[in-house]
């Protein structure tokens, strides 16, 4: 007979806290960066293939969709880098108390967004190129 069985706690039962968010986002950005290696491959192959293929890459990268994807790639790289450093510190035994782990997760979130926005600000104000 259909009787309500005890259920194991599902995702919806937990409240969000910073370390939980940074853990999930670390994995999501990792998978995103895996897809991003295809962009890097495209860029290098295009440069190696001559002016026309490179121009195609430039046009796509400069489009609004290209800029959106590149911003996502930039932020994912910054987040995964910063949170990766946090994880390496964890592996060496630093920052284990809940208060410190939560604080450091917040720092990673805020700093990663700041760096990505900063990088695009540098690019859009024309300060991006070497001596350009």
């Amino acid at each position: 007979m259909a009787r309500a069985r005890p259920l194991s706690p599902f995702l919806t039962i937990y409240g969000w806290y910073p370390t939980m968010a940074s853990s999930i986002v670390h994995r999501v950005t990792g998978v995103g960066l895996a897809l991003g290696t295809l962009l890097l491959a495209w860029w290098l192959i295009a440069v190696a293939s001559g002016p026309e293929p490179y121009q195609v890459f430039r046009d796509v990268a400069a489009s609004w969709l290209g800029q959106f994807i590149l911003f996502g790639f930039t932020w994912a790289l910054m987040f995964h880098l910063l949170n990766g450093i946090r994880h390496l510190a964890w592996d060496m035994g630093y920052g284990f108390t809940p208060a410190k782990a939560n604080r450091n997760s917040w720092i990673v979130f805020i700093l990663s967004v700041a760096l990505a926005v900063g990088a695009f600000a540098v690019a859009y104000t024309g300060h991006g190129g070497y001596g350009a």
Partner: protein
Amino acid sequence: MSSLETPLHRVQGLGSSHSGVKHFWRQRVTAAALVPLAIWFAYAVLGLVGASEAQVLGFLTRSAFGVPVNAILMAALILIALYHMVLGLQVVIDDYVHGEGGKIALMLFVRAAALAVGASTIFALIRIAGPV
């Protein structure tokens, strides 16, 4: 006998994963190597925003100590990142894919993709900055 573990299994020290801490350790070593490489990459790409084909070729063929140092750093970044990616995606697949067949198929796909991206980008870099 106080343990159900066989003496052979114990002296091998590989645990239930049959591979010991190899995966964990390699993930950390590649992560540590990627910290400076990712910072270099972010800085380098910021300098190449909107760059012409000639400027990208100039960057990748720039010589220091008699070798194309930027192309070599790019190759190191790509190869280590792909290794790190394979290790990371293996954890994701282990977590979410429960059928043995699907798990093996996905892992083979990830490794084949890593090989394809690695081989094609290294070929492109050699074409750009190689001796011929």
